[in-house]
C-alpha cells in the first residue's frame, strides 16, 4: 500500500477543483459576450474513472501476451484527464449566449467550499503522517 495514496487523490481533486474555478470564472467573465457557450468539468465521468480504479466496479481487462501490446479496455487511470464539456445546445439570450449567472455564482460558491474542504482533508492527512512519524508523541 502506498503511503501517499490518499494525498495523491486529494491532489488530483484539488487540480480538478482549480480547473473548475477557471472555467466558472471564464463563464462569469463572458456573461454578456455574444455567442459564448458555458463550459464545465464533467464530474460524473471523473468519478466513474476513480471508481473503476478503486475496484468498486467491474473493469474489463483484455489479455495481453506481451507488455508492449496496446492495452485493451481502460489503461491505468493514473494519468486521467478531466473532461471539459461545452453546453452547445441551449441559448438563453438573443445573442446566442447561454451563461446563467445565478447558476454560475452558485457553482462558484460551491466550488470554493469544496476546495476548502479538500485543503482541510489534505492538512489532516499530513498531520496524521506527522503523528505517525513522531510515534504518537506529538
Amino acid at each position: 500500500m502506498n503511503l501517499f495514496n490518499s494525498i495523491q487523490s486529494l491532489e488530483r481533486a484539488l487540480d480538478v477543483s482549480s480547473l473548475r474555478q477557471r472555467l466558472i470564472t471564464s463563464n462569469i467573465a463572458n456573461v454578456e459576450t455574444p455567442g459564448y457557450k458555458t463550459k464545465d468539468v464533467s464530474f460524473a465521468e471523473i468519478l466513474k474513472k476513480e471508481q473503476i480504479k478503486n475496484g468498486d466496479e467491474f473493469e474489463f481487462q483484455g489479455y495481453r501476451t506481451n507488455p508492449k501490446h496496446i492495452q485493451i479496455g481502460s489503461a491505468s487511470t493514473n494519468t486521467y484527464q478531466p473532461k471539459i464539456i461545452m453546453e452547445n445546445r441551449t441559448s438563453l439570450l438573443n445573442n446566442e449566449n447561454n451563461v446563467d449567472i445565478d447558476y454560475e455564482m452558485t457553482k462558484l460558491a460551491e466550488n470554493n467550499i469544496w476546495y476548502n474542504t479538500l485543503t482541510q482533508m489534505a492538512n489532516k492527512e499530513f498531520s496524521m503522517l506527522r503523528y505517525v512519524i513522531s510515534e504518537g508523541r506529538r
Partner: protein
Amino acid sequence: MKLFSTMDISASALTAQRLRMDVISSNIANAETTRGQYVDGKWIPYTRKMIVMEPTSEDSFQRVLSRYSNDLSVAEGVRVSKIVNDPTPYKRVYQPNHPDADENGFVLYPNVDILKEMVDMISATRAYEANVTAINSTKSMLTKALEIGR
C-alpha cells in the same frame, strides 16, 4: 504560469465592463449634443456608441492549438474588440430658433435613448460585481492552498 491566470480572466472582465461603463457615460453625457462632428460645413449630432465584446484569444494560435491538442487551458477572458456607432437614425425635433436647425426648422438630436443606457448601466454594474465576487472566491482558494501542509 497557471496560478494567477484564473484571476486574470476575472480582471479582463473587470476592464471590459469598466470600458463599457465609460461608453455608457459618454452616451448619457452627450444625449443632447447637437454638435458632435463637423462634416462639410455642417454639424452632425453625437452618435450613440456601442461596444462589441468577444472572448480573448478568439482566433489566436494558442486557441487553435489547444482545441486540436485537447489541452485543458481553454478558459478564456473577455475583451472589447471594437466600439461601433449605432446606425439608428437621429431624432428630428422642430425647433426653428435653434442655431443648428435646417431650412425647414428641424434640429437633429443624437440617437441616444436614456432608458436603454440606464438598463445597460445596471447590467454593467451587476456584471462587474459578479466578477469581483469571482476574484474574491479565487483569492480565498489561493490563500487556502497556502495552508496545505502547515
